């Protein structure tokens, strides 16, 4: 393994990537994606460190395209012999791909990178003892928040990554970023009953971590569910908490993937120019916004990221395209190549989604609802939502809303509708934008006419 120091060496990765692509034969397009990263994870329980994980990883993925056929290989090491083997395997795999005239690597498109500060030296140099202390302090603050509270786990985690992407078609970029976050899972007990609540805070620098916010969230979310009952079934209005809205927007983002569109799996294919959402709803994917947790200068193919308006005032404007999906759709790449790491090739998808916020806070949104439920958390989005058919069904917990104010807690029920209807049924968008550790930001949202299934 290369000697990786925290912060790594982007120049070294760039030279590895360019040495691979310099070997492209005349009939080949070759892409090398080289990555190094590290993470620290501290878990604290009852005032002591339960575990301390120090992890570093590195790897390379090589994609080769010859006459429309694609081959790919990767290895979780940057040892010279391994890189040699990866290139040979990727070349060997080309023969088994089917010809696809649209298969191609990214080409530089002249869009300039929006420079961002995604690296913090303060974080890179943060001492181990300080990281442990953050987790311990979070546990203390959470326990102190309410006498009924105990802790499941309190965590501090940080990570850094450096990547280099080079292609024989002229892409040559590097990126370097780090970030940190804390999370706490609290349990609230009363009699025989236990409820759970989750709190978090994220930052690019340690001083952006807000321990009080994380502790308060966890305590409030756990204690306010004590005594929860199962609500009656019926059709009501729901108010989504910011964390829930973020999950909802991620699902919508998936349906706007250019790849889903060109392969006939998107609900919204052939709907550009149609009203697919409530008037007043504007959905933007903008990784150039430094406030976004997933802000980045370049996408997974090495193209500059850009601000893309996907839905404007309820009307569908465009999809999120990678080089491949754009070529097939006859569209322009939008800087939306996304890749999970060196072990895979890029797909097309949203990177940093957000609704343009409204002017009312959550309390004012709740006041608009006569009979409904504030949805604090949802479960089973992976099992009960089908992004192809649009069917939406999720387990939920939260608080009843009666006459515009919060009433008793409820749990063990589902909320159901379809993604298509929910977009059109959005009645109000909150001003309380929150940049969550997700590819979508959250804010409170009122959605009319959703089926609650309980007793």
């Amino acid at each position, binding site marked *: 393994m290369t000697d990786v120091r925290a912060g790594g060496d982007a120049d070294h990765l760039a030279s590895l990537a360019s040495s691979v692509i310099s070997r492209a034969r005349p009939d080949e397009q070759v892409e090398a994606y080289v990555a190094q990263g590290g993470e620290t994870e501290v878990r604290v329980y009852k005032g002591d460190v339960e575990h301390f994980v120090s992890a570093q990883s590195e790897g390379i993925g090589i994609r080769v395209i010859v006459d429309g056929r694609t*081959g790919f290989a990767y290895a979780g*090491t940057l040892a010279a012999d391994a890189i040699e083997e990866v290139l040979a395997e990727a070349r060997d795999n080309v023969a*088994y791909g*089917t010809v696809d005239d649209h298969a191609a690597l990214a080409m530089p498109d002249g869009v300039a990178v929006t420079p961002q500060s995604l690296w913090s030296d303060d974080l890179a140099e943060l001492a181990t003892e300080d990281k442990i202390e953050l987790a311990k302090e979070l546990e203390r603050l959470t326990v102190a928040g309410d006498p009924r509270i105990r802790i499941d786990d309190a965590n501090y985690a940080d990570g850094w990554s450096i990547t280099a992407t080079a292609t024989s078609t002229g892409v040559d970029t590097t990126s370097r970023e780090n970030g940190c976050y804390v999370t706490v899972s609290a349990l609230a007990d009363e009699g025989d009953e236990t409820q759970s609540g989750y709190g978090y805070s994220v930052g690019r620098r340690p001083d952006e971590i807000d321990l009080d916010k994380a502790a308060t969230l966890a305590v409030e979310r756990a204690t306010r569910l004590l005594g929860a009952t*199962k609500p009656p*079934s019926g059709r009501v209005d729901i108010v989504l908490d910011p964390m829930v809205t973020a999950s909802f927007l991620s699902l919508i983002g998936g349906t706007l993937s250019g790849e889903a569109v060109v392969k006939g799996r998107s609900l919204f294919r052939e709907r550009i120019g149609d009203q697919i959402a409530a008037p007043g709803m504007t959905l933007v994917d903008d990784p150039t916004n430094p406030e976004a947790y997933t802000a980045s200068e370049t996408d997974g193919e090495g193209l500059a990221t850009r601000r893309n308006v996907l839905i404007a005032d309820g009307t569908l404007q465009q999809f999120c395209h990678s080089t491949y999906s754009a070529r097939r759709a006859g569209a322009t790449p939008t800087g939306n190549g996304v890749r999970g790491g060196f072990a895979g090739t890029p797909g097309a998808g949203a990177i940093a989604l957000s609704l343009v916020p409204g002017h009312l806070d959550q309390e004012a949104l709740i006041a608009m609802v006569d009979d409904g439920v504030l949805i604090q958390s949802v479960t089973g989005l*992976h*099992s009960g939502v089908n992004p192809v*058919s649009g069917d939406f069904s999720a387990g939920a917990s939260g608080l009843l809303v009666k006459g515009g104010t919060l009433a008793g807690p409820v749990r063990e029920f*589902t909320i159901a509708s379809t993604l298509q209807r929910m977009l059109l049924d959005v009645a109000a968008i909150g001003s309380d934008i929150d940049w969550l550790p997700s590819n979508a930001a959250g804010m409170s949202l009122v959605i009319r006419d959703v089926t609650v299934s309980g007793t």
Partner: protein
Amino acid sequence: MIDTDVVERVLASALAHGADFAEIYAEDKRSTSAGYDDGRVEQLTSGRDRGAGIRVIAGERTGFAHTADLTADALLHAAGVAAAAAGKGSGARATALGPPSASSDRAVVIPDGIGKDRKVALLARADEAARAAGSEIVQVSAGYGDSRKHVLVANTDGVLATDTQTRVLFRVSTVASGDSGMQTGYESFGRTGGFEAFDQVDVADMAATAAQRAITKLGARPTPSGSMPVVIAKGTGGVLFHEACGHGLEADHIAKGASVYAGKVGELVASPLVTLVDDGTMGDEWGTLAIDDEGNPTRRNVLIKDGVLTDYMWDLLRARKDARRSSGNGRRQSYRHLPMVRMTNTFVLAGNDDPDDIIATTANGVYVKMLGGGSVNTATGDFVFGMTEAYLIENGRITEPLREGNLIGNGPQVLRDIDMLGDDFAMGSPGTCGKDGQGVPVGTGQPTLRVAALTVGGTAA
């Protein structure tokens, strides 16, 4: 993979600063995957992952570090990082390593010895069969994957174990289009073993099943909402037990009082019809392992017998604290991850009821032919799981297909509400269980069964 004398040096150095326990987990894994989508082989991928994770425990604290470099120097460095993170405990000396346990490899036909063209041919066969199932099928995606992993686990208790784990996986997903919009169908197959698994199954049959699921749902009506009896077909419902109680029986949740099953051993926690087993030794099932990822042989563990909770599942860490043996349930996603308590193959034994009678005696309710994934909050016991193929039961007969949705219930309540258990049994589709960000392969199974009341999460009144 690593010479025994190097293993001994690394373990000794990990204890040199006063820790109580140290462990090396090393793996060398090669994998192949091929994706077919939209009528084409998209790409063939070859992967290589190799490295070691070193865990050091001192008192209540665990330190962990890993490296992709298996040389003695790199391992010693990682051991130093992990030992520093763990700090000082009561101090222990390494027990001499025992003789290595015998490797066991279930694979008969090593996937690496099969031409890539034969793997790709399976995909084309599935694509063709799915499209032939009906003109409604507008899109097909299929995937093939194999992996073969050599593992070495050694610890300062004297454990030295090696294993070779081979797995093959195949999946098909389809999209059907009609006047009602688009619907999807899915079918998958996975085995702990080699390419010979494809002698047991015809991927064209799998593809036809996946296609039919999508086509059937084009005529589906909105799923009802509210509480009602739910009958679950054999094989597919194991995920119910995985979520309703499996996670809650993991000793790490128990130790923190974050499970509704804490302190309940010896108590009736389920209908007396229910006997629940977790068995990592089961044939070539997807969750089968000869040794767990802490070097302990896997076992058949009875968790619930005739409704009474008999035991939890244990890994090394939790077993050490309770001065008992691990149940062989310590698992991890890779050398880059810490092990924790995980399930293997979790299933409910068959009962005495005729499956046809179970439906015939259900006046009105829902029949679930295929479940999707699920999740649980172990602290409250509330869990959800998705229906990907379901039908209405009206007057004791299966009638119309239903759209997709989640079911929601509370673990202890649902276990008590199981009122009929079929005399049939099947294991279900290969699953990936996620916990704390790590995914591991698991199997599930059960006979046809009925839950007297579950909340069905549809949109219809």
